């Protein structure tokens, strides 16, 4: 049975009082709860995405021994708000020969694709929209909408730069989906299910129980997943679709104002989502290292904080990589995917399967500490 935030809350007593408040209309209550949670999550993620731009600028400045944004607010913290205001107030320019419908559609698709993934992201054991049985699979599937959006954006602009960027982006995202999916498949094999609840629940306890340390293949799979995910989110060193030195700005060259903002926001939130997925799949998710008995609200808050801490650390690593490594060539990009990552991912999958058969499903920690 699919678990949702509503079904989680219904275990507790205050749910009944809430129900009474809504005149025993279960559907209305559930709808309201979903709406509130969705708004919280979207707001949170949008803030994180906005702060992501700030973080990126600040961290890159730090790496390059500059100061970075420091005028708007304390330490320039409100810079992203200023940017947002600027974007919203800008003129919305559309090229004369653009394909209007697709030009409008593309940024929406990007944002929809990213926000749809947030529905299954396990911020904590309860604070997730829905814990689908096919959660991981759903996440992979729905995030490929971004690739489509990139392609359509590039096509609809009717510009050479955009076209090239869009085609590169689409081919890159489709290609890198394969190693990423196969790495995730290895983890679903270990967990015995595709739901995030199952996967995160399996990694309870000390970091040694995380799936990244389950066996050597899972350890490699993490890096394959992380590399592929970087490429899927068009981050450096895989930022060929928007390579500013070659393609001006790639698929969103012709976009201005809030449409451009959608693309940018989608990119930053997707990075956050990818890091969150990595944390949930490999790094123990929102689990507490120790079992403590607390009330529902505090424990959820602690779990969310743990999840966000891990995710933002990975987020830092992503930005760090972006400002450290140079960009790959197109042929190198493709050969990395097809000649190295995909075979490695397949070997990891087979290796995990063999490990499970040979060691009867035990992890390395189980064998070391005994279970």
């Amino acid at each position, binding site marked *: 049975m*699919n678990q949702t935030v509503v079904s989680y809350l219904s275990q507790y007593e205050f749910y009944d009082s809430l129900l009474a408040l809504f005149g025993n209309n279960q559907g209305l209550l559930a709808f309201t709860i979903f709406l509130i949670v969705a708004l919280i999550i979207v707001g949170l993620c949008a803030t994180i995405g906005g702060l992501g731009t700030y973080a990126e600028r600040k961290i890159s400045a730090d790496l390059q021994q500059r100061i970075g944004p420091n005028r708007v607010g304390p330490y320039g913290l409100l810079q992203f708000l200023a940017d947002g205001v600027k974007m919203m107030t800008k003129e919305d320019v559309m090229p004369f020969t653009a*394909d209007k419908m697709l030009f409008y559609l593309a940024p929406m698709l990007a944002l929809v694709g990213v926000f749809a993934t947030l529905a299954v992201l396990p911020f904590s054991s309860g604070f997730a929209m829905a814990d689908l049985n*096919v959660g991981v699979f759903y996440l992979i*599937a729905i995030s490929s909408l971004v690739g*489509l959006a990139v*392609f*359509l954006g590039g*096509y609809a602009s009717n510009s050479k730069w955009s076209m090239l960027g869009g085609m590169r982006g689409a081919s890159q995202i489709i290609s890198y989906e394969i190693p990423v999916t196969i790495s995730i498949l290895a983890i679903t094999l270990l967990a015995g299910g595709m739901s995030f609840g199952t996967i995160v629940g399996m990694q309870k306890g000390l970091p040694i129980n995380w799936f990244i340390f389950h066996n050597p293949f899972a350890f490699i799979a993490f890096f394959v997943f992380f590399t592929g995910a970087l490429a899927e989110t068009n981050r450096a060193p895989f930022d060929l679709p928007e390579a500013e030195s070659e393609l001006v700005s790639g698929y969103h060259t012709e976009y201005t104002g809030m449409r451009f903002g959608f693309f940018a926001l989608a990119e930053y939130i997707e990075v956050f989502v990818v890091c969150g997925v990595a944390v949930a799949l490999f790094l123990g998710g929102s689990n507490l290292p120790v079992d403590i008995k607390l009330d529902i609200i505090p424990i959820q808050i602690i779990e969310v904080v743990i999840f966000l801490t891990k995710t933002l650390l990975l987020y830092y690593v992503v930005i760090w990589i972006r400002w450290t490594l140079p960009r790959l060539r197109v042929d190198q990009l493709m050969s990395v995917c097809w000649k190295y990552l995909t075979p490695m991912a397949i070997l990891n999958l087979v290796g995990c399967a063999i490990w499970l058969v040979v060691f009867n499903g035990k992890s390395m920690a189980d064998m070391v500490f005994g279970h």
Partner: protein
Amino acid sequence: MFIQILFGLSALLTIGCAIAVAVTKNIMHSCVFLLGSLIGIAGLYATLGADFVAVTQIMVYVGGVVILMLFAVMLTGGKDYVSKAQNLLGLAPNMGNKWTYTIGLLVSLVFILTNVKLVSSVIKANPAKTFGNEFPSTVNQLGHLLVKDHVLAFELSSVLLLGALVGAAIIARPRKQ
């Protein structure tokens, strides 16, 4: 309630997009409408409790087939072209004209009538079973079915996919002369 809403939205999306696919004059838009239709079908699957099939539908069509078609459209160019070859439907542009649409609709009508006759008799013969409003997870059962009852088809489909992969690569490869 949710299911009814989801069904209504999905059905609307599916049918509307399918008709749009048929009537729009722009092949690119046609592809995008197809995407909408396919997502709608995924929603319909969800209302039927087929969660795995629904996600697979999105995965394969959104992530693969539609992008592939968009690529194909882009590589073959959107230029309109009128064939010089004479045929029963006369001269027709790439996206069809009123004669071709007339014939297409006629054939569709014939098919619809046929199908209505067929399906109504089938439904009359097999009254629908009643079932509860719960949706048990299908993932585990599907996995067992795939590697037990349908293992031959499963393996054959892998061979088919490999053949399609290699065949597509060979066919589309430009020949050096």
